[in-house]
């Protein structure tokens, strides 16, 4: 407990400074509402079912897009690393699209799928697909040949060698790709919801901002921070669990 307090004390100092600066009147309370006001507004939101509905909408969009990108990205990356022909045909296209800043796709997905869920899910899928498939490709290609050969000599067939040896040995690389993808998921989700949407946590930030309900806008921004922090913690747990065989 004492360690926790010592670790997070700087955040408490910042919070206190915020409250003091805002209350002192150095900046307008309109631009920087006191932290206590924001927390009170957050409390109001917590009693509002609409708040939860929008969070659930955002989280589901993020999960759907990221899961689709995980499944297809790992499949494509593994295929590219395994079969030369797949790499020769798909590789150049992956390289071509890789440097595109993915936020450029927001307006495109909107003309294709409208302003609802499907445009956001597709956007997140597109954004996360390339980092995951590239990381998988690098990981599977870098797997030690001796591992594959040992598995083969022990009688593993092609599919088992791929699934149980190559992909497993590539997990550290795949996880690095997933970490990038997780960050992209949040950025694309919030960006697209801020721009054009009719529900979601980004949508709430926008309408509270447009309606000059700034304490609520700050509270929703904090919600996004909290979601990002929790997702990062979950990811760390998961990768710690998946990599427990490493010392």
């Amino acid at each position, binding site marked *: 407990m004492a360690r926790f307090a010592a670790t*997070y004390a700087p955040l408490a100092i910042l919070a206190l400074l915020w409250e003091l600066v805002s209350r002192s009147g150095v900046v307008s309370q309109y631009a920087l509402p006191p932290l206590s006001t924001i927390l009170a507004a957050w409390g109001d939101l917590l009693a509002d079912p609409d708040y939860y509905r929008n969070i659930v909408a955002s989280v589901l969009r993020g999960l759907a897009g990221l899961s689709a990108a995980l499944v297809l990205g790992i499949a494509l990356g593994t295929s590219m690393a395994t079969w030369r022909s797949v790499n020769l045909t798909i590789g*150049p*296209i992956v390289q071509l699209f890789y*440097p595109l800043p993915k936020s450029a796709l927001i307006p495109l997905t909107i003309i294709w799928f409208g302003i609802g869920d499907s445009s956001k899910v597709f956007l997140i899928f597109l954004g996360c697909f390339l980092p995951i498939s590239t990381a998988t490709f690098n990981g599977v290609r870098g797997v030690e040949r001796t591992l594959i050969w040992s598995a083969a000599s022990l009688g593993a067939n092609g599919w088992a060698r791929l699934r149980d040896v190559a992909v497993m040995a590539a997990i550290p690389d795949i996880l690095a790709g997933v970490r990038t993808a997780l960050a992209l998921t949040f*950025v694309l989700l919030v960006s697209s919801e801020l721009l054009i949407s009719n529900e979601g946590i980004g949508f709430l*930030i926008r309408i509270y901002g447009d309606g000059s309900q700034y304490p609520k806008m700050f509270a929703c921004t904090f919600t996004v921070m909290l979601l990002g922090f929790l997702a990062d913690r979950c990811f760390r747990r998961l990768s710690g669990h998946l990599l427990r065989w490493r010392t």
Partner: protein
Amino acid sequence: MTGLRSFAVSLAPVLVLIAMWEGVARSGLLTPFLLPAFSVVIGRIWEDLLSGSLASAMALTTARALSGFSIAAVLGVSLGIVMAVSGAMRWFFDPIVSVGFPTPKIAFLPIIVLWLGLNDASVVAITALSPFFIIAINSHAGASGVDKQLLWAARSLGSKPGELMREIILPAATPQILTGLQIALPTAMIATLVSEMLTGVGGLGGQLLDAQRYADSPGLFAGVVEIAFVGTVLIRGVAFGRRRLLCWHSEGRAGATA
């Protein structure tokens, strides 16, 4: 010759993709609104190029992206190194960085707009904020991973703290600092484009959103191609800079790619 051949081999799938795009668009399977023909999109890019609007939008977006990114680079590298050197600074900034890193910084755009207004300053500020933590974390890791024996040797030979920093810590941390910058650059560009779309201050992002609003799909597709071009040039540029700066280091010669 082999270089030319491998280039031709890698060009082929791209040409096939373009041919398929043109074929599907002309076949009428999809309306021109959903997928304008490649030739139409290229025609639009050519028009933008001749009218000068492409050059000015590209210049505007690149300038915003690079100025924000430079601010993030200077502040992020400084913070990372200071955290590596001073225990007190590490204590203070560690929790801030660990909360700031996983936060999607773009969520702060409405707050930044509230403070700075709908203008360049907001775009540059969010562009600087977005890659800042990645740069700081990598610089911190690089600077704190310096071989202790090098530091002890230099100290026992009488190096002052400034010399230690300039001659040992900075050069030893450079590879990882550059890695951080390389990973962070796309983040900065994503933020620049989104904030251009949201604040309506023009540039490639602003044009893209206008094209979407006016249902101008050739303009929209042209914009995506133009943005991809700028992204490729900037990312290649940083990779090139990295190789030049690290020509003394084994990793530089290996030609690391991002």
